């Protein structure tokens, strides 16, 4: 008598369990991140193009065009060093220069990413520079500066996707530059996401 009762109880228990109505909700999360990216864009400009008379300058950044085409021509060539489809490196070469030879390099940068960026800072051979600041570079490491650079402006500017900035800098060859030499330096322009910059966030125009 006890066995059938137990059997019925077990079945009914199982029956209740199976019969319990249920509903499951699912949340499928997907986070698509944006891209922080900027690129070099034309126009790439310089003063000493082929057939152009040289420009000279002096210590106080006074410039004048001479009556001679001795130095140059300057070449400005963009390249895609990381092969991600946009230009990230600009190779500038000044030829047959001499003390007081002056050159101005200009180019554009464009935010080709999907989030705003801040033009955070500029370093020249690791030396942090600010807008309008003149720095002297001893490229031969003989204790005497060989070239003088002045970076233009736009540091701290916020660029929205598609936004473009014009950037320029000046180069002056100094008296202690050696003859027949090849002097090199690297300028690094750093952009960071707009909301983690040291510069204030601005609204789009």
């Amino acid at each position, binding site marked *: 008598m006890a066995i059938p009762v137990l059997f019925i109880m077990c079945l009914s228990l199982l029956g209740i369990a199976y019969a319990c109505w249920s509903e499951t909700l699912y949340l499928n999360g997907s986070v698509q991140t944006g891209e*922080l*990216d*900027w*690129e*070099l864009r034309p126009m790439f400009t310089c003063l000493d193009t082929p057939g152009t008379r040289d420009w*000279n300058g002096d210590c106080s950044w006074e410039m004048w065009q*001479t009556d*001679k085409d*001795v*130095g140059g021509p300057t070449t400005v060539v963009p390249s895609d*060093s990381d092969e991600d489809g946009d230009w*990230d*490196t*600009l*190779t*500038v*070469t*000044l*030829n*047959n*220069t*001499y*003390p*007081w030879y002056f050159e101005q*390099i200009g*180019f554009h*940068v464009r935010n080709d*990413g999907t*989030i705003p*960026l801040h033009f*955070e800072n500029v370093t020249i051979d690791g030396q942090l520079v600010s807008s309008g600041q003149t720095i002297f570079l001893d*490229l031969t490491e003989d204790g005497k500066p*060989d*070239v003088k650079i002045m970076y233009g402006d736009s540091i701290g500017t916020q660029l929205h996707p598609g936004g473009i900035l014009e950037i320029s*800098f000046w*180069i002056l*060859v100094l008296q202690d*530059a*050696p*003859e*027949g*030499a*090849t*002097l*090199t*330096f*690297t*300028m*690094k*322009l*750093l*952009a*960071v*996401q707009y909301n*983690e910059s040291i510069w204030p966030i601005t609204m789009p125009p």
Partner: protein
Amino acid sequence: MSSMIKKTMSLFVLILLATSLIGVTYGMWSEALFVNVTVKTGTLDAEWTVGTGYDNEQPGKDFSNITGTLSPDKKTLTVTVKNAYPCIDYYLPVDINNTGTIPWIIQSFNFVSGTVPPNSVIEFLPDPAPDRDPDIAIGVQVHPNHEAYGLVHVHLSNDAEENAQYTFTVTVVVVQWNEYTPPTPTPTTPIPV
């Protein structure tokens, strides 16, 4: 035992904090653009070339002569007048060549008369050959692969002694074309020693 647990918990929390801080720092997105600049400087260089000397000794009286020899680097011109005597004019054609890549201008001559007797003359004269410009003179500009022409003129005065050896030095300084400073006052030519 409870102290040990507290220490372990504290350490764990600290590690978490440190890791999250590092994570935030590395996590900031950034993108760098580079401008690689190369400045190639030119060269400023000058060299002498020398021709065959001559003088104004009368025909049949060619007893003395002027010659010039160059040092291996062609920076030094040695002028020799042999068997010289007073009142003869000796001429040596010379060029100063721009062998660099930048124009230069003759900034200065420095005549050091040394032991040359008084009232003698040592100077640069214009090149007598027509259609050859420019002449060697202060302020003359010479472009690369071109030259300035002239004559070294030596004239001994009657103060010269027999069997003597006189020496003199002339230093010519050229400067890059864009840093030439005109002398004031302008020196006269010829420059007596």
